[in-house]
Each structure stands twice: as C-alpha cells, then as structure tokens.
C-alpha cells in the first residue's frame, strides 16, 4: 500500500447499504467503521468501537438520532459522536470529553466516500457526472487492492442490451492508482463503467463499479446479473493469483488510546468562551413576544448537548446572555432557542428581538449543562412557567424517546403564549397546558401536582422567580426532599452585598489570595491567572461552582438549594463570598 492512501477519499459503502435505521459494518485501510444514516439524512462514519468497553458499534441500535451500544447502553449523538447518556449513571450527565472518533463522509455516484485523513476533493469521474450513474453490486475480493486493480484492468463485459452476442472489444479510457474506466464495444453499442477499488485491509479489497448510464427498466436486472457473474469470475482469478503469493502484512490502524479515567474527566475551560460561530438560519415568532431562533454552525460542527443544557450567546451589542437549548435527542444540526422579549430588557432580549435578523452571525459558547436530567426517576414532573419551558422541552423529548413516565405542565397566559407548538403537539399526552391561572390558582394546581411523593420521583421547575419559590415551598410541604426538586432560575434578583473582605486558599494550586470588597472571588482568581469557567456571572447558572474544603460561605446565588447551601461545600464564585475570615477552595 502506498502511504498517500491515508490522504485519499475511498468508497466505504454504497448508498443502498444505509437503509433506514441500519448500522453498516465497514472497513478501510485496516480500520473498522460503523456507518449509519440518521433520520435527518446525515451519514455518520465512526470508529467501530464503543469508548466504554470497545464493543463494536456496528451491532448497535440506530434509533434515527443516536447510536446505542448493545453492551451497556452508552448513547452517542448523530453528527458529533459525543456521548449523551450512560445508563449506569442515570443521574449524571456524561462528561463532554467522551466523544467517539469520526471520519468525514460524502455521498457521490451512489457511493459513500470517507478516509483516514482525506485531502482535497472526492475523485471526480467526468463520465459519471451527468447524473445517470448506475451502481453495480460491490464485490469483495480476498486480495490486496494492488492485485485487484491490476486484474480489473483486464475485466471484460458486454454492453447493455448485447449480453448474448459476439464478445465485445474493451478499451481502457482512464486509469489511476485505484480506479479504472473501461468501455465495452459490440454491435455498434458501447457501455462505459468506472471501477474503484476500496482497500479494506492488506489482503481484502472491494470492487465498486458504476455504469455511466442507467439502463432502461427492463434491462437493469439483467445488467446487474451480468456484472455480478462476470466480476465473480474475475474474483476467482484474482483470489487464485493471491493464493499463489506470500500473504501481505496486515494493515494496522492507529487506534487512539482512551484514558482510563475518561468518564471522570472534568472540563476546565476558562472564562466566557465563544468558540462557535453560528448563523441565524431561521427566526420566527413562536409565541406572543417570544422569538424562536435556529442557529446553524459555520465551519466546525456544533458540539454534543444534553437535555437541560444552555449556551452563552454573545450579542452584537457586547452583552452575553444564556439560553437553554430546546433540542430533542439527536437534533444537533442546528441549535434551537426561544427568547422572550422582557419588558425591562437591559439590552439582551431586545437586541435579539429587534436587531438580530436571519443571516446574522453570532458567537456562542459550547453547551454547558448545570440542569442535568436524571433518567433513573420512576416519575418525572416538569413544571414550566412561560418561557421557562425551553430546557424542559429538551427534557420532555428525551423522556418521551426513552419511554419514561413524565408530564410537562406548561403554565402560560393564553394559547398564544405557548412557545414551540409543533414540539408540544408531537409530545401529545405528555403535555398538560394550564392557561390563564391566577397566582393562587397556580399554587393550588401545583399543590395537586406535587401532592404525592414517592422515593424515586423528581420534579424540574423553570420559570419566573416567584413561581419557582412557590413550587419549592409546596414541594417541601408535601414531603419532597431538596434533592428531588431541581430548578433553574432565569436570573438572580438578590441584592448582592460585596462589601466583605476575606482570604481564599487554593488547596491544589498552593496559592493564598485576598478578596477585597467590591471584587468577586471569580475576578480575583482570574486576576491571578487561575483559569475559571463562568457563564451568567450573577449566581444563577452554576457554571463557576467550586468545592469548598474549609470555611463558611456567604451564599448569594440562586443556583444551590437550601440543603446544598446549608452543607456549605460548594460556592458560586461569581457572587458568593465568605462569612469566615478564610475559605479553602478545592482548586
């Protein structure tokens, strides 16, 4: 094999090899591949190995959106191959570093082309470019690609419509290292075919043939049979030749090491990074005063997301705002968010509503999930107030797909205020609409909904502050423990008191720093070169959370619940401070 085959595009399957919800088992240059078409028509070419125990993903289940390993049920997303769910850890979101290796895929001439590290374009064959190309049955040969292409140059076939007549004369029109274009002439008729040899391994190759013209309906099967028979005869000759030669050294694909601690690897991005550029592919009014946005990536594919995740959107006016993704499982070709025009907008929602238009480019962060969905819940209640429905829509679609027991209770003023109606319609009975309720009626409805608590029930609430607080109080009264009540605030309306001064010791970095009044822990850390991720920077989202080893935090955030605050072992560094003179942080 020549080294530059690693930089070529090779056919790895035919289009017909990827029917609905099938996973194709392929191999190229000694590397096994799992190839599958998702319901959105995207063709995935992946390393054929689950990152968990190395089981072949080609025996996995293609559910149209994700590929699920048969062994322990790890799920990988369409397009990104990022892991979205680990059934053994149903309460946790998988680390975003768990991502399978992907290879590019292009469909052309009825073949799926991929490669190790392909440069340039998929090979072009002028004779096939008029759109009438007709794929032949691929033939696998137990011989090297070099030997197969050498014999293929001598392949003889009859033109369409003249299979029984006098033997045709053959001409070779073009030839490359791995392809040959042959024309058969007989009875003043001619047929041209391109044959490309796929190097599967050192001693296996596949002949992938394409005729330049599609025969008339009545001639198609007989044409396919003719080539199937003649290529099988050619294969016998090639294999007999291969058997008389020494066996070639097997190809060895380089397989990246998977770190043992893979599932425990934490992310450590610093600051408010906006690594992705997206274009507003669609902007529409999805409900009264609510604009829907479809954000499509420019360049890099969008990263894997999980239900409950949000992104930072960097606006043209310099502001940064967080919006939850509404996407269901495996819908990663675009991100969908919903933005409500706030009456007292400080420039975030009004900019998105009034300034940003379809075709505009925005910078966004990778998705972060501080509102993860547990999947070990016997019953899940999702409570949405107004635009708070967005993360819960992603959750509802995931729970519906997994066949888990859930209900999405959507509180809104009127029908016209219900956002993302098509998604709600698809969820059918999973959605209960509560329209036009007064605060008191909302309270009594919530009391009914939360009347019953059983060990493995979980409730997720997202909506305006007063509604969240009411829900938390009602749940607590009905006996729901704090860890069964999950919530996400839009914003922190607490008046922040940043007057205290204290010292922080960083246990891992062996640094002691002073936090003066008027500065946050986060700012002090960054000023001293300690990388820290953050997002909302107002104590709502939970991105800048740090573990506390010693000292008493002065919590001023709305991310932690009462018991988490009382435990005192985590702190939101963007707003919270210390009651004690010193805090020891686990960074």
């Amino acid at each position, binding site marked *: 094999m020549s080294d530059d085959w690693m930089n070529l595009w090779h056919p790895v399957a035919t289009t017909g090899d990827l029917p609905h919800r099938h996973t194709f088992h*392929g*191999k190229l240059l000694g590397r096994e591949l799992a190839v599958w078409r998702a319901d959105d028509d995207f063709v995935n070419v992946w390393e054929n190995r689950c990152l968990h125990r190395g089981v072949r993903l080609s025996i996995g289940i293609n*559910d149209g959106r994700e590929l699920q390993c048969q062994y322990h049920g790890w799920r990988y997303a369409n397009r990104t191959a990022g892991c979205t769910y680990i059934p053994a850890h149903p309460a946790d979101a998988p680390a975003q570093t768990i991502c399978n290796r992907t290879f590019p895929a292009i469909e052309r001439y009825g073949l799926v082309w991929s490669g190790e590290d392909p440069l340039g374009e998929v090979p072009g064959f002028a004779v096939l470019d008029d759109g009438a190309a007709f794929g032949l049955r691929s033939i696998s040969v137990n011989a090297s690609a070099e030997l197969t292409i050498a014999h293929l140059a001598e392949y003889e076939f009859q033109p369409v419509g003249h299979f029984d007549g006098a033997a045709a004369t053959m001409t070779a029109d073009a030839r490359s290292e791995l392809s040959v274009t042959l024309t058969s002439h007989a009875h003043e008729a001619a047929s041209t075919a391109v044959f490309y040899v796929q190097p*599967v391994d050192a001693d296996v190759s596949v002949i992938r043939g394409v005729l330049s013209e599609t025969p008339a309906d009545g001639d198609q*099967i007989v044409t396919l049979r003719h080539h*199937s028979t003649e290529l099988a005869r050619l294969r016998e000759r090639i294999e007999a030749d291969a058997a008389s030669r020494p066996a070639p050294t097997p190809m060895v694909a380089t397989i990246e090491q998977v770190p043992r601690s893979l599932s425990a690897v934490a992310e450590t991005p610093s600051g408010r990074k906006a690594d992705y550029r997206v274009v507003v592919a669609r902007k529409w009014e999805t409900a009264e005063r609510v604009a829907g946005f479809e954000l499509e990536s420019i360049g890099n594919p969008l990263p894997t997301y999980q239900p409950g995740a949000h992104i930072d959107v960097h606006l043209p006016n310099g502001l940064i705002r967080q919006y939850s993704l509404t996407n269901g499982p495996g819908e990663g070709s675009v991100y969908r968010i919903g933005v409500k025009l706030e009456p007292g907008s400080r420039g975030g929602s009004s900019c998105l509503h009034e300034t940003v238009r379809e075709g505009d480019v925005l910078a966004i962060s990778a998705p972060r999930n501080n509102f993860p969905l547990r999947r070990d819940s016997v019953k899940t209640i999702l409570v949405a107030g107004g635009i708070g429905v967005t993360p819960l829509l992603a959750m509802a679609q995931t729970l519906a797909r997994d066949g888990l027991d859930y209900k999405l209770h959507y509180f809104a003023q009127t029908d016209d205020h219900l956002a993302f109606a098509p998604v709600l319609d698809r969820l059918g009975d999973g959605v209960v609409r509560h329209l036009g309720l007064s605060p008191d009626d909302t309270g009594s409805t919530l009391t009914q909904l939360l009347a019953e608590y059983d060990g493995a029930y979980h409730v997720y609430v997202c909506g305006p502050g007063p509604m969240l607080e009411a829900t938390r109080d009602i749940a607590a009264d009905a006996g729901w423990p704090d860890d069964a009540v999950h919530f996400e605030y839009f914003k922190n309306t607490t008046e922040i008191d940043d007057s205290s001064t204290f010292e922080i010791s960083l246990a891992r970095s062996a640094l002691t720093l002073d936090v003066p009044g008027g500065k946050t822990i986060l700012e002090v850390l960054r000023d001293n070169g300690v990388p820290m991720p953050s997002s909302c920077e107002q104590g709502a989202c939970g991105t800048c959370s740090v573990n506390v080893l010693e000292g008493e935090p002065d919590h001023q955030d709305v991310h932690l619940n009462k018991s988490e605050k009382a435990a005192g072992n985590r702190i939101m560094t963007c707003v919270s401070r210390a009651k004690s003179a010193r805090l020891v942080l686990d960074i």
Partner: protein
Amino acid sequence: MIKLYDYVLSANCYKQRLMMDILGVGYESIPIDFYPGWEHKGDEFKKINPLGHIPVIDDDGFMLRDAHAILVYLAAKYDPTGLWYPTSDPELIGETAQWMLFAEGTTNTASAARLHVNLGYDFDIEACREGAHRLFRVLEEHLWFREREGLDWVCSGPHPTIADLAIFPDVILSEEGGVSRLEYPAIRRWSDRFKRTPGFSTMPGVFPAGHL
C-alpha cells in the same frame, strides 16, 4: 405442553424457541447439560434420541428430532396462516425446501465452526470456515438481487418462511466461530429485517434490532 430438550447456547435449539415464540406457542424447556457435561451423548439421552443430539421435542407424546424437521412440524401444526410453511403454493414450498437444505449447509459449516471454538467439538475448523464463506457468498448475492426485485426474504413470497428462520441463527452467530460477516452487507440487512419479525426473541450473542 410441548417439551423441548434444550440447550441455551445451541443454535439449533434457538431455532425451535424462536419458532415457538413467534407463533406464540407455549413450551417447557428441559435443559440438557450439553457442555461440558456432554449429556446428549450419554446413555440416558440416547433413549430419547439414539443419534445423540438436540433439539428433540415431545408434543403430547409425539417425539420428533432434527432441528429443521421440527420446524416443519411446528409451522405445519401451529401456524394457522400457513405463511411460515407455505404448502398451498408449490413453487414457494419448493423454494422453502431448497433453502432448508441450504440451512443444513450453514449448520454444518458456520455453526459447526462455532461448536468447535466454543463448545468443545473437534472439527476441521478451516474447512468449516471456508465452507461457510462459500455459502455466505451465494446467500449474499441471492439476497442482494431479492432486494432489487422488491423482495425481503430468501423465498419469493412476501412473508418470511421457516427457511429464513433456519438460516438466521447460523448466520447471526457466525462470528463466534470466526466467520466474519464484514463482506456480506445484504445478509446483514436481511438479518435486521428478520429481527423485526413480530414475536422475535433473542439468545446470548444475538441482539435485537432497533425500532423502525
């Protein structure tokens, strides 16, 4: 109730369980210590089957041995639709018989390789594997052209027959015997289709297909 002299890892016993699960026929499994106990070769079991192999069924006193013969009996007796063993159509029943004989071939090659690797039999493993590939190439081409003709199964009818059922376990377990199916995409698509047959059940080493 039908008694099935059974071993969970046997492909031929799986064929009977699969047929009865698909037809909704209840049965009692009588486990035989096939490996490592070799119970089917013992004197006691030879009173049930002097050939010393399983499966054997006992349907209310009617005893029958040989996997593919039992499939004929079960389908003929318990499938009121007549689709699995289509006796009313001479061509279709002829094809069914032809592919049942083909299944004898896959049993004696692909499944034999698996018995050699996993369950202590001493066969000429290379001959088994070569034989399996020879048959798989024929099946691959056949199924590929079936798809082009709009047909899903080994015989020409619109519904799977006991021939599909007889071939399926030998094919789907072949990798345990060292017979890769990498070269056989049409066989793999047919396997997926077969797994979606209503009532389909699995065994160790056989995984279900996803929903369409």
